[in-house]
């Protein structure tokens, strides 16, 4: 039975680096996400506290988790592209993701 991908891609020398970096970033996000869940369980009234721009902690933390995911994604891509370019022996292309 066939196992090859629908579209073939060559060996990726940066794969190990990307996997390790991804795991660490995943664990870091897990910690921040767990903090959100723990506050809700341990002291839900704390979520009512006004934090910034008259917004409460629930709104700021919830939206913050969404924005934080976007920021981490961009940083991860940047690091991956740099490593891929370095291992391929050419500079990283500017712009875009």
């Amino acid at each position, binding site marked *: 039975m066939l196992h090859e991908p629908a579209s073939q891609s060559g060996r990726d020398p940066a794969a190990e680096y990307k996997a390790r970096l991804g795991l660490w970033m995943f664990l870091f996000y897990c910690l921040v*996400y767990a903090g959100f869940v723990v506050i809700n369980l341990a002291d839900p009234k704390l979520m009512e506290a006004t934090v910034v721009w*008259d917004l409460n902690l629930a709104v700021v933390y919830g939206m913050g988790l*969404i924005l934080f995911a976007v920021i981490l994604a961009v940083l991860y891509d940047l690091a991956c592209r740099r490593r891929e370019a370095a291992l391929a022996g050419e500079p990283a292309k500017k712009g875009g993701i």
Partner: protein
Amino acid sequence: MAITAFLIFVAFVLGLSFYLGYRTRTSSGYYAAGGRIHWSVNGIAFAGDYLSAASFLGICGMIATLGYDGFLYSVGFLAGWIVALFVVAEPMKRLGKYTFTDAVDAKFNSRGIKLAAAVSTLVVSICYLIPQMVGAGVLVEPLLGIAHHWGVIMVGAIVITIVATAGMASTTYVQFIKGGMLIVFSTIMVIAICARGFSTKPDQGGQVPFYEYATLAATEADGRLAVAEPGWEVIETQEVKAAGVSFAKLSREGRVGWWLISRAEGRVALKETQSVVVLSNGTKQINGAPASAENTLRQVGNIERLRGKTDPVQESISPTELLAAMSDKDTVVRRWKDASFTDKDGAKTTLYFPVTTAGNILMRPGLKFKVQGTPLEKLDFVSLMLALFLGTAALPHILIRYYTVPSPASARKSTIVAIFAIGFFYILTLFMGLGAMINSVMNPADSNMAAPLLARSFNSLLFAVISAIAFSTVLGTVAGLIVAASGAVAHDFCDRFLRIRMDDRRKIRAGKLSAFAVGTLAIVLGISFKGMNVSFLVGLAFAVAASANLPAILMLLFWKRTTAKGITASIVTGVVLSLGLILFSPDMYKQFGWDPTTAPIPFSNPGIASIPMSFIVLVVVSLLTQKGSTRVAGHPV
């Protein structure tokens, strides 16, 4: 206008499918769009796949009825993409061909994994299909004026046609168009909400006069209720224990209606409700008069006090002002709940009654998920957040999209585009949900229509476009799920597990036949589960996916001692345990019409038990089966 927009859209989608179907000649084209989709298109198509009826209809509806608790789904659904990006995206692309099973079995070539993963894909896809089909019926019912079941059948038929003509190629482009339109028009709607501002007597821009619900003073002596104002007669009272409320049936000048008995600060008051009564002869009455196209439930939901003031009109507000004012402890919002009972004449009565909630309570978790409740209720909350976080990267219709791009780097880039698009949309859901809550647009009998009804309160064109997008949301997601499910049956089960020799044409035909069978099943289930909140149902599908698939993916990638038997046992455990816990949970008992307090499982979200158990089983079985375990050479992760 809504019907015209809807028909144009359906015609366009079908035309695109037939065009792409004409070009689809190979099984790679059918199952993975030939692996040639550009990462930016695939990223938006990811958003289209992911922003399903649950996101657009369900989350907005849940925020509109339960405040911040609905937004928890947005937070959890988006967080799941972190797992997809950092852990799953590139390895999945490197390992697989068409399906999740290909990837998880790539190192072992095990028939056990093939069978278990195919069954798991099928089960998760069907669990996810149910809320989409429920959403389809909900949407089409008011849009085209046809019954819920006809809406479900129509959507099912269109989707089967889309999938059976061109498979993943048409599904991808439908998702791309829909994902883009959804984000653009949701942004327009949020701008419209902020431009309209606040009013304690919202009238939908002058289209629908605000209805003032009456409150009557009452007295209670020796258990007998009496209305203070003359002319009213109390006919009977009814307690609904499940909802923790009591009602009084009042009559005045020949008109009879149910009122909520409110006891607060030593005073008794009666609050006007809305009612749907199905008499023993089958006749349906709404608010005391026969149901008709003109006599329907009034739209509800408004601010009673804004930062302590009872009658402010604020014409435009910034997004942060909206959130800040809604979170204020001196802001009070009127929401609506329901309670059902059968009266002594055999009439099935459902009453919709108002409750008021302060902003500080509304805008933090607690109205649905009892974070201040018993340990079990807290566990239910943790369980949901865990399943949402871990479920995304295990959904079959998301995983197969990694095979439509040409390389692992493209898989990563498309995931990042998806995170941008989906994250932005989920932030918008909070504004759309709150907008629906306070603009008197909610149908008290169905939270799922919050976003389209909010759009209608602005103008009919926006309603037409939003309805068409919502419909395409359902179409696209159902199409993706049916592709995933048909891949599980035709590719994983028939081709790889049963080893039925098929050429490319027969593989495509097997996929199309499977799509027809799964689509038909989805129609039946969509009709059966009418009335349940689609976000809640999707949360359960996430729990099954996270329990069945994610432990296998993660351990395969990060634990070298993982064996084929360990993976098989883990998938089987995840599927069986999560489904079992769901079927015996209080929410399912309620769905079956049984008393939820008698459910043997005390919580509704199974992830907290089934996900760790699936991991444990994988580790234990792998350790016990180290001898003789074989890996296929040449398949590095």
